């Protein structure tokens, strides 16, 4: 773990003042709550609710009381408990970017609508890539049968991945269906409650300072039942937040405090994550800019606020506006995630998406795996110890000697540095001889290699038969080799 302390963009005084300013916003401006049940929750626990406008105003002491109930950790569970991850202790954990409508077809290179078969294939890939900890279902499934929009995403994802699976649902009918799928996988409702292997995520806060109907309902329902759910706040400076970094931070922080207070009002000690996707809009056109450096800076500041609240921090960081595996894609993902990690964010929603979350790309996903391994290496730090000073070794080799053939070197050569599979370290001549492969083609070849292997994560036929009998017409949910037609 990083030992020198986290990178901090705010002084302790500035953190406290940001917190107070957020309380002032919640008390004076309030939150417009569109869900009637949510209004009742707020009213019952000491907030004032304007019955006409739905605006909820929060007395500061109410926010302070409830937000202090949020515990310091959050656990993601996978089908195989060996992949369970708790943040901050197991952090930084790396999560795929999610819910893109499109995929860049790995055979044709042309963007098209994503399908359930793509989800199955991506799930297989994520299961095998060591940099990823959580599979947030990367795309939608355009082939979903009527009434199975979410099922067509969760089923192929869970079937092909032992790591924790995370996603959302658009309505309560879908949520209930997905929970039922989870219960079948777990072997019953009780077993599921014991080990809920579906990790729910929603964005009930719509900036500025608004709570929606459907996602709020889902968060309420899941929190009541003690099932794992966390939320992300998404302030966008210049459009849904003031055009200052601090104003954007305050709006996002007020929203985080509102939703956290809400969850604790429903059920005390509900685990939360201070998760965010803060942006500063490009004012030339209003363009959305999740890949911009300001996203990393704001997320770093939010990690600092999260430490003030003693809750885990992270969010969508390392996304890119780029449309291919070019330098922009690399620097946006690389710079922002390093900024997040050094600031203490332990959840990085970063993998696999181009074009501001619009399209999944197999090569980008494999490249992001490598960036994730580097981010985790940064987190490990320099591992200071007397032993690691290697004084005896320095003396033994002496001036002018070589460390290459030494036992000391051999014992550590695979762990001291990240050994990338994609970053090219050959001589120029060798690279030219190999046909000048770019990182995109190297990454796609690696994805092909992985996906040509059988997937050990797929569950047994008996469970599959049970699920298919319960949900007639459900999609096949099988991963395909990358060269097979995906539609």
């Amino acid at each position: 773990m990083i030992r020198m302390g986290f990178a901090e963009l705010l002084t302790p005084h500035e953190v406290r003042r940001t917190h107070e300013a957020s309380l002032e916003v919640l008390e004076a401006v309030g939150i417009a709550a569109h869900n009637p049940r949510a209004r009742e929750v707020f009213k019952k626990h000491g907030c004032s609710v304007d019955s006409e406008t739905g605006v909820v105003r929060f007395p500061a002491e109410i926010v302070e009381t409830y937000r202090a109930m949020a515990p310091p950790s959050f656990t993601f569970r996978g089908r195989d408990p060996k992949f369970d991850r708790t943040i901050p202790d197991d952090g930084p954990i790396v999560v795929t970017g999610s819910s893109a409508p499109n995929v860049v077809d790995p055979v044709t290179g042309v963007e098209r609508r994503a399908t359930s078969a793509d989800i199955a294939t991506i799930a297989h890939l994520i299961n095998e890539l060591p940099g990823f900890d959580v599979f947030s279902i990367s795309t939608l499934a355009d082939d979903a049968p009527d009434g199975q929009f979410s099922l067509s995403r969760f089923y192929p994802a869970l079937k092909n991945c032992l790591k924790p699976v995370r996603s959302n649902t658009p309505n309560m009918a879908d949520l209930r269906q997905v929970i039922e799928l989870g219960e079948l996988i777990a072997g019953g409702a009780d077993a599921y409650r014991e080990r809920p292997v579906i990790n729910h995520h929603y964005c009930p806060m719509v900036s500025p300072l608004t709570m929606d109907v459907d996602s709020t309902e889902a968060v309420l329902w899941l929190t009541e039942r003690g099932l794992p759910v966390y939320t992300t706040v998404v302030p966008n400076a210049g459009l849904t937040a003031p055009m200052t970094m601090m104003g954007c931070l305050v709006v996002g922080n007020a929203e985080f405090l509102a939703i956290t207070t809400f969850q604790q009002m429903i059920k005390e000690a509900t685990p939360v994550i201070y998760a965010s996707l803060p942006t500063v809009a490009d004012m030339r056109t209003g363009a959305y800019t999740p890949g911009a450096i300001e996203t990393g800076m704001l997320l770093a500041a939010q990690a600092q606020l999260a430490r003030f609240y003693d809750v885990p921090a992270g969010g969508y960081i390392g996304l890119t506006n780029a449309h291919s595996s070019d330098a922009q894609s690399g620097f946006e993902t690389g710079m922002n995630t390093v900024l997040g990690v050094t600031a203490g964010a332990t959840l990085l929603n970063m993998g696999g998406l181009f074009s501001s979350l619009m399209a999944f790309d197999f090569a980008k996903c494999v490249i992001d795996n490598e960036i994730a391994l580097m981010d985790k290496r940064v987190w490990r730090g320099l591992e200071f110890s007397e032993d690691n000073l290697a004084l005896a070794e320095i003396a033994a080799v002496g001036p002018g000697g070589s460390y290459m053939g030494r036992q000391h070197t051999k014992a550590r050569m695979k762990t001291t540095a990240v050994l990338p599979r994609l970053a090219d370290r050959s001589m120029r001549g060798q690279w030219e001889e190999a046909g000048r492969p770019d990182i995109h083609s190297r990454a796609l070849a690696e994805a092909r290699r992985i996906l040509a292997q059988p997937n050990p994560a797929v569950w047994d036929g008996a469970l599959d038969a049970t699920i298919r009998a319960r949900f007639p017409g459900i999609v096949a949910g099988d991963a395909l080799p990358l060269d097979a037609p995906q539609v």
Partner: protein
Amino acid sequence: MGHEELFAQLKQAIIDQDEDAVLSSVNTALDAGVEPKTIIDQGLLPGLNVIGEQFECEDIFLPELMQAALAFQAAMSVLEPKIKESGNEGPKKGKIVLGTVKGDLHSIGKNILKLLYETSGFDVWDLGIDVDLFKFIDKAKEVDADVIAISALLTTTLVGQRDVIEALKDQGTRDRYKIIIGGGATTQVWADTIGADGWAGTAYEAVNLTTKLVS
């Protein structure tokens, strides 16, 4: 002050994005007996044309474009009732039914588009956010719309755009309207997939696209 000078002043006030100056110039012109329609055509619209050109080459940014549009709208709130009184209403460029799909509460992009539509001479019926697909269809039928413009920001709600098109097909009225889509979750690929008549990445482009579609 001669009329030419008044028109130059109106144009400049729009270019300066100065609502107060626009309103006082409009009043001066009205006092001088200039027809409301002439104030718009000779003063305000030439100003907006300059603003549009400046925006396209990034001399000005989106907030400046919006301020100019708001200043124009303020002038129109004075001029439009007078035009109606005189019975000299010119034809509008087209009728637009606008809204954000069911399940989606995002309104900012849609509101920018509404403003730019109105500024560009369209009649707009804004159905707001979280709009049921039949509300789009019923309103379009009621006002005999030329265009239905549907926004979606969330990838999980954008299927609502397809639902509107499919429902129109079911009713056999798809060809009565041009349908354009936009919003953060949308792309040209999606527009092609669902059979929309057009897609725009920004509000400004959406107005240009709509103008082409209705002309």
